[in-house]
């Protein structure tokens, strides 16, 4: 039985169609990459799955499912008097050290305030926050700019490791096609409408990518055996 099944999902903001007739499903252990240009409805899709955006159609989550959500950004005021330990305890009080260890942060971070963290550290804490609730489905919205490229790669390695360890279903929004080939076994291409869905090797053809990003897209995945 799938962990998540999305059928004919449409989302409108105001009068504008943000997502139109999206259908796909996800099993435990799947890693689904959602790709598409800016404004193609990627974040809206995650928010609809979360229940934060109104939608038409169906979003069927398996019963008793626990969701972990790592938002693209979180508007925290820098002087918010909340320590990492207290922040994690908002989700679960069990073993905060272990959750930090899982995202490669030292236990000394527990007593730092979340406002003191760098954007990369904050992202790791947000991942720790998501996994401390033992999710069955993890939604990861990639930050567009705040995290440097070197840092970014290790975050994906981290997600990959966590996914294998806990056998969770993962949906990750990505702007980087190498990430898709390396870490995802399914890919969903969005341009408000569903351009493609399937295994990356099969559906990410130059023709589909051109359709998704417009004709002059220079990026292809070359080094593929």
């Amino acid at each position, binding site marked *: 039985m799938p962990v998540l099944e999305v059928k004919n999902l449409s989302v409108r903001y105001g009068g504008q169609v943000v997502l139109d007739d999206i259908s796909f499903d996800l099993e435990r252990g799947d890693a689904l990459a959602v790709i598409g240009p800016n404004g193609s409805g990627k974040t809206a899709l995650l928010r609809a799955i979360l229940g934060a955006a109104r939608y038409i159609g169906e979003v069927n989550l398996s019963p008793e499912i626990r969701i972990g959500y790592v938002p693209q950004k979180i508007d925290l005021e820098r002087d918010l*008097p*909340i320590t990492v330990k*207290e922040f994690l*305890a908002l989700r679960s009080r069990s073993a905060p050290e272990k959750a930090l260890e899982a995202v490669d942060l030292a236990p000394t971070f527990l007593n730092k305030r979340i406002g003191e963290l760098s954007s990369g550290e904050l992202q790791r804490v947000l991942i720790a926050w998501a996994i401390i609730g033992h999710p069955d489905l993890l939604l990861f919205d990639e930050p567009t700019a705040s995290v440097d490229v070197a840092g970014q790669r290790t975050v994906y390695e981290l997600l990959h490791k966590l996914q294998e360890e806990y056998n969770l279903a993962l949906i990750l929004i990505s702007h980087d096609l190498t990430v898709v080939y390396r870490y995802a076994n399914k890919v969903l291409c969005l341009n408000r409408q569903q351009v493609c869905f399937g295994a990356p090797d099969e559906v990410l053809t130059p023709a589909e990518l051109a359709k998704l990003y417009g004709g002059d897209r220079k990026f292809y995945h070359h080094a593929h055996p």
Partner: protein
Amino acid sequence: MLTPELQIFIAGFLIAAAGGMLGSFALLRRMALVGDALSHVALPGIALGILLNFNLFLGAGAFLVLGTLGIWAVEHKTKLPVDTLVGVFFTLALAIGALITPEEEILDALFGDITQISQLDFWLAVAGSLVIMALLLFFARRFTLSLISPDLALSAGFRPHLLELSFLLIFALTVAVGIKFVGALLMGSLIIIPAATSRNIARSMNQYITLSVILGILGAILGILISRFYGLPPGPAFVLFAGALFFISIFFRR
């Protein structure tokens, strides 16, 4: 025996503690002015209470609950920012209150006077403050999370809309309880100033809430003492003292 003096201290102590605790949550999401504005929504209720001669707490409370539900409902229907709505409701209520409050009562309604509280007021203040603090502590995790990030709250299985409504209702109850003490005009200060001071110094959420409560209590006790010895009204005395502490705390900002 509870002498009137002791009653004033106890009521002031508890109201300030509840206000300080509520404020520490409200300031997690720049809701400082919501409190200021909400307190004015109570004015027409107070005026009606004076005119028709029933307990002011009930009049204020009824209007606050109605105002709160109105703000919440319109916010979710229109997606207008909550401070815009509160601004509109606030000036409306102030205008209505000013029109129907008898002139000689207007100062009391605006500035309050805890030295004039009745037996019923006293017990309402005690019970109200204790209920507020119990509710805040019970919902502390959920409120904190939905105030700092509704989406994270949703992912954890909470319902941020309902939590927001509950928080606003507790907010309204706090204003209703405190309004006798500092009056409508200064009610916001009871909620905002101790928390704002505490936020400058605190290094964790626990410290922040505890310190807000302590600062509220300290301000209330000193405000009442100052008003006894110098014959000032206790509301403004509280604000002056709490305000002074706030400015001192700026120098200790971490």
